[in-house]
């Protein structure tokens, strides 16, 4: 049993809301004019399926997240790095969740036929999802969307994730290991105890750089300086980023300095994940008389350039 949490005070809730609002405003401002739809991929995307995935395990991970391991062989075998799932959340405690929730595929294990997602409990949907137990079956649809792609000839890659955004880039760390690409993952978060990715990087042979708000190392100037020094001898060939607009802007600025491409993964409210509900307008500047790109099918990975 997990220990009972004291409910936050009104002042704590207001502080958290103010933090979220500031983050959202900074995010939107940072992404303005930064993103564009990637050129068409070379090959076809894997065909999406829906499956009754068995929950293999469901556990608390780090300070504030949960890891859900699902047995769904087709998706495990076909998902590309940076693609996502729609998870239909079963009813819990009289609470019905109508819309499936989009979640990045964190790990793929085609041999076992399993995938992992990591999420934070944030609202009604994730609160209900947190109640599922091993052995239960979850309806999932995927793999969906446009993932991260290494440019031809990539030898070194930099991945940057903020919070649970690390999960969106983890598939590319897996691919890097399989292709002999040297990967560096920067995990940014509020506290050391919240960071995801250290164990995964150790397993995959990637360099892991933790940066946090509490230590000041996640502050943008500090992080920029750290990365410039880290890659002083030679820049990475590509940068993948997810989890915060301000980090995406930093990545794009570094990419411009280094002369290398930057790809950024976004999240959005969406209902279908396939493009037909048109719910997930991407923050890409377009002619207002014409519909702009959608996060689910034109992304979630976009090109980012200053």
């Amino acid at each position, binding site marked *: 049993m997990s220990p009972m949490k004291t409910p936050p005070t009104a002042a704590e*809730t*207001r502080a958290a*809301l103010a933090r979220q*609002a500031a983050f959202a405003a900074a995010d939107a401002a940072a992404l303005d004019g930064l993103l564009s739809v990637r050129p068409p991929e070379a090959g076809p995307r894997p*065909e*999406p*399926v*829906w*499956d*009754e995935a068995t929950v293999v395990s469901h556990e608390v991970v780090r300070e504030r997240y949960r890891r859900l391991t699902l047995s*769904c*062989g*087709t*998706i*495990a*075998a076909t998902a590309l790095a940076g693609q996502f799932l729609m998870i*239909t959340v079963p009813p819990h405690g009289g*609470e*019905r*969740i*109508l*819309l*499936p929730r989009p979640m990045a595929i964190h790990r793929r294990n*085609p*041999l076992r*036929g399993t995938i992992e997602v990591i999420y934070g409990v944030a609202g*009604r*949907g994730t609160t209900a999802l947190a109640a599922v137990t091993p052995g239960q079956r979850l*309806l999932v*649809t995927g793999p969906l969307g446009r993932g991260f792609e290494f440019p031809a000839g990539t030898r070194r890659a930099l991945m940057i994730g903020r919070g649970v955004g690390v999960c969106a880039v983890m598939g590319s760390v897996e691919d890097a290991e399989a292709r002999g690409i040297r990967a560096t993952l920067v995990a940014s978060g509020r506290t050391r105890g919240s960071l995801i990715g250290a164990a995964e990087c150790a397993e995959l042979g990637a360099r892991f750089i933790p940066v946090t708000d509490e230590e000041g190392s996640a502050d943008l100037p500090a992080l920029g300086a750290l990365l410039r020094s880290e890659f002083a001898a030679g820049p990475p060939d590509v940068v993948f980023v997810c989890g915060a607009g301000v980090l995406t802007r930093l990545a794009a600025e570094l990419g411009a300095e280094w002369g290398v491409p930057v790809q950024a993964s976004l999240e*959005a*409210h*969406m*209902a*279908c994940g*396939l*493009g*037909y*509900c*048109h*719910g*997930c*307008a991407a*923050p890409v500047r*377009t*002619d*207002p*008389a*014409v*519909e*702009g790109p959608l996060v689910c*099918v034109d992304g979630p990975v976009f090109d980012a350039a200053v």
Partner: protein
Amino acid sequence: MSETPRPTTDARRTFFAARPTAGATVDLGVSIGGLRLLNPVMPASGCFGPALGRLIPVDELGAVVTKTVFGVPRGGNPAHRLTEIRAGMVNSVGIPSRGAAGYLAELHPHYRALGPPVIISVGAHRPNGYAPVVRDLGAAGDAYELNVSCPNLDRDGTDIGSDPDAIESAVAAVRLETDKPIIVKLPVLASSIAECAQAAQAAGADAVCVANSIPALPLEAYTRAPAIGNVIGGLSGPSIRPIVLRLVWLAARSVDIPVIACGGIETADDALDYFSVGASAVQVGTASFARPFAMVEIVRTLQQRCTDDRVAGIRDLIDLWRAQ
């Protein structure tokens, strides 16, 4: 020894394989004007696209319905375009459209390739705006559904479909442009759904669809800020079913043309609720998001119920229970 990925299957594949055998099924066919549908189940406009055809055997549906096509391209609303509250889903996508020409060139071939009759949803901002779009679409649609009820665009949620005179003039003008069946999709907020349905019938419509999402204003917790970019959106999902059941009941009593029910249908039993109050067909919207196979499951369940009870169709199935 190197491991290879184990052979795998998935629920989608199993679902496709479970297609009922042709000939072994009850005829659930229904007519909308001169258009014969294999069965009375179809998607609600805006909750379907050719992409869903990759996940389900779409050819088991009675029809497909396009996202609303406007005459000229439209961009759609700012984020967030949708949210979920306890009462249901609220959306204000803003109906992005490629316009009639863009629809015909880029989208229509994909809808046509799905197999079932294609009902093209048509939108406009004025009563006289529908006919030119239908003219531009020509013979492409097997039927046209006039979306006079999109609640999130005009005049704070009121719209053309709440005014019988406006409905009559819109339908009469479209009637001059096409011999294909005309369906009028009515809104929830009509002063009299009966008068609106009668106006559609009088002007030559072949069916009415009742209803659409309900204008609503979702707020964020604590801050009470609007939860969607357009402030006002349309509420959908199972919570609106009793509201729409009343409207379908009222409409079906007031006109002779078929009534297509649309509002919170998730299961065959939900569909049977609507059939029992006079609907001839049903549209499924929000349910497809969480359960992509919901529409096909409804068709198969209706078939199975008729087969199990050895009855010829849905009317008999309802009568059988009514007699208890």
